[in-house]
């Protein structure tokens, strides 16, 4: 067999003077980097820089370095571009990768800054004064009709008012990630955390494992093109139902979970035989047009006793018009997934080159729904690389009702963004079904990590609101007046509906 042109990306360095020769690195590595022969011997080519061995080495004697191999300078043909060509020449395959788009596109969030109060209106102290993050996701009527209650007061008129909304204690949900792409312990961690935080986790398209039933009031169940695990009981259990049309990391394409990942538990949750591939078709074959979407939305509402039904789409060029159609089709929320959103597996070319940034999608959709006077009809959930509470605040100021976090929540469980979920060998026990790896996450610990993260972000969001002089998140929502841009061009400012700093 000819040699590969591709050189290892990393170098594993072990300081053998310090090494205990305990073999823990061998045991920790999910990719089989290490051989043990009196001492650990690394095979650099297998390393993903996930830092599991580094973290768990008792002697702290391992470091992972970039392979500094020099390539002849060429700005056009980056080493990564050359490697891609070599890889495809070797294999004839579609390049597969995972997590979100890593290319250096403009990060719009990092070009937006928030306002604060000085003198003319007071900032508010969030630690001591009320600072409300409660958020309702779902359809709201345009107005509230009331009638006299005969006791000098008023009550909602018959049939009036807000119905069937999800109540969130903080405007942060967990993104859909299927059982299959992540482990059951990850699902349990997310579900427990969602319950403690007063928010929602989302099954993704892989069904609802029975171990999550105790948390079902904080679970959104997803219906995707593969319809895995979807039956009447599943719809009954979810707090809301989400139709997945697309995903930011891979708009317009389907996917498949390889048969080797379909173990007994995954098989029973997805309701498919063990060992067969779980194929998600690119489209829903009962949705070829918007009126078909309406038909499915109302089928799910009828079947579930009118639970909220949301629709998740990837942010693509015409997202505003699509979202408007979805709202008019009766969706209770539109979930927008920007092009930096994560994935358990996607063709690299799709992940890196299709879709638009979430910031633009939020701005375009929110404005379009307002222009059409239908903004109250549905909520907007934004996702696709929400990296901090600052991103949360900016997304909300642009017009999102809430955000969903996927990559960040996995990072809370140890993910180091090594972009190797598709291998199924995740050393952190997150995106794998291997029992020796999945048991690395104790759901109780995982729930605490996730709860900590969302609590911390919520606190920070309260600090931001306080600085803005408002004490409820609805007063930031869509308030683009509180944003300014730095270093964006006029056209982009117009699209985002924000003024440049100084104006």
């Amino acid at each position, binding site marked *: 067999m000819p040699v590969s042109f591709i050189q290892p990306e990393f170098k594993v360095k072990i300081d053998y003077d310090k090494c205990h020769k305990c073999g823990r690195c061998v045991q920790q590595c999910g990719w089989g980097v290490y051989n043990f022969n009196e001492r650990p011997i690394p095979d650099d080519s297998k390393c993903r820089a996930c830092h599991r061995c580094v973290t768990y080495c008792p002697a702290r004697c391992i470091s992972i370095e970039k392979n500094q191999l020099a390539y002849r300078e060429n700005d056009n043909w980056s080493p990564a571009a050359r490697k891609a060509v070599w890889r495809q020449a070797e294999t004839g395959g579609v390049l597969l990768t995972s997590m979100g788009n890593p290319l250096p596109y403009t990060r719009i969030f990092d070009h937006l800054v928030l306002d604060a109060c000085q003198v003319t209106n007071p900032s508010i*102290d969030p*630690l*001591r*004064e*009320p600072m409300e993050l409660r958020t309702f996701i779902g359809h709201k009527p345009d107005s509230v009709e009331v009638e006299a209650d005969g006791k000098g007061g008023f009550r909602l008129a018959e049939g009036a008012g807000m119905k069937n909304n999800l109540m969130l204690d903080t405007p942060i949900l967990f993104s859909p990630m299927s059982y299959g792409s992540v482990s059951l312990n990850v699902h349990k961690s997310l579900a427990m955390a969602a319950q403690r935080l007063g928010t929602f986790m989302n099954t993704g398209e892989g069904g609802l494992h029975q171990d999550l039933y105790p948390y079902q009031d904080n679970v959104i169940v997803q219906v995707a093109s593969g319809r895995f695990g979807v039956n009447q009981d599943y719809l009954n259990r979810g707090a809301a139902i989400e139709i997945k049309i697309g995903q930011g990391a891979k708009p317009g394409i389907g996917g498949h979970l390889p048969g080797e990942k379909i173990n007994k538990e995954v098989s029973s949750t997805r309701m498919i035989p063990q060992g067969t591939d779980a194929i998600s078709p690119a489209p829903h074959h009962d949705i070829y047009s918007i009126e078909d979407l309406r038909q499915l939305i109302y089928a799910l509402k009828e079947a579930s006793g009118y639970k909220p039904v949301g629709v998740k789409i990837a942010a693509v060029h015409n997202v505003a018009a699509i979202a408007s159609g979805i709202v008019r089709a009766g969706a209770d929320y539109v979930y927008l997934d920007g092009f930096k959103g994560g994935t358990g597996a996607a063709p690299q070319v799709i992940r890196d080159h299709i879709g638009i940034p979430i910031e633009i999608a939020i701005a375009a959709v929110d404005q379009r729904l307002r222009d059409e006077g239908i903004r109250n009809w549905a909520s907007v959930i934004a996702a696709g690389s929400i990296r901090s509470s600052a991103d949360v605040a900016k997304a909300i100021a642009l017009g999102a009702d809430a955000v969903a976090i996927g990559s960040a929540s996995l990072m809370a469980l140890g993910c180091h963004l090594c972009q190797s979920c598709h291998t199924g060998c995740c050393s952190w026990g997150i995106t794998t079904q291997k029992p020796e790896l999945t048991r690395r996450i104790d759901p109780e610990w995982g729930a605490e990590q996730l709860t900590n993260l969302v609590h*911390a972000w919520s606190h920070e969001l309260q600090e931001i609101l306080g600085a803005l002089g408002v004490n409820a998140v609805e007063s930031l929502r869509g308030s683009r007046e509180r944003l300014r841009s730095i270093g964006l061009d006029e056209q982009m400012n117009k699209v985002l509906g924000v003024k440049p700093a100084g104006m």
Partner: protein
Amino acid sequence: MTQNRGVVEGYVKVAPVVVRDVEKATIDAAGIYYKHLNEAIREVVADGAKHVVLENVNGQRYLGTGVQAKGVKIDVHGTAGNDLAMFMDGPSVEIFGAAQDGVGNTMNAGTVTIHGDAGDVLGYGMRGGAVYVKGDVGYRVGIHMKAYENLVPVMVCGGNARDFFGEYMAGGILVLLGMNTQFADQPLVGSFVGAGMHGGTIYLRGTVESWQCGKEVGITEATEDDMATLKPVLAKYCEALGMDLDEVLAVPFTKLAPFSHRPYGKMYAPM
């Protein structure tokens, strides 16, 4: 049709009429701009007046503000304006009427006695001295009161109080009686009592629900020891405002004290 009288003025910018009677000075404040009124007060105090009587006060700001003198008494007849006794260091001020917002702001020493109601943000950052209010008080009363070395501020309010009573409180004694109120059918005190409290003590004549209080606050019945501390404070209050101490003491008091002097010690994660 009404006769044209020219521009209606709230206040005129002239020196007020002062009548001196040995250590007593009587000033007619009617329609006098606050700057000229306060100038006159400072002048008579510098000139040895020990008892300054202000007649016909209505809304003039800063009465007693920044006055640094012991043994001086200022009587205010009418409605005192904002920032009464701000930074005050020594005198005693008695208001035969109501006070507006910001009484005793950052006050250091002296006494303010108010025979009517008082407004919002009463005693903000007060470090010493005493404020006695006969009637109702507004929002954020006793906010960030603090104590330092031998300075222990005292505030007693005879009526009801609104939200954020004793917010951020860091020291001193803050008392609410709920007796002389226009709002007898409403709760003694609003919500967020002692929110962010990390020092000092609040005493309420009556009870409070835990949801009304900040999460930093411990709620207990006042013990005998507590009452031994409180009784002299109430005695002085009753004396100042002509109230019956036994009647004040006829209802059990609730004591609010912070769990910790450092309520936010664990909130931050250093990077």
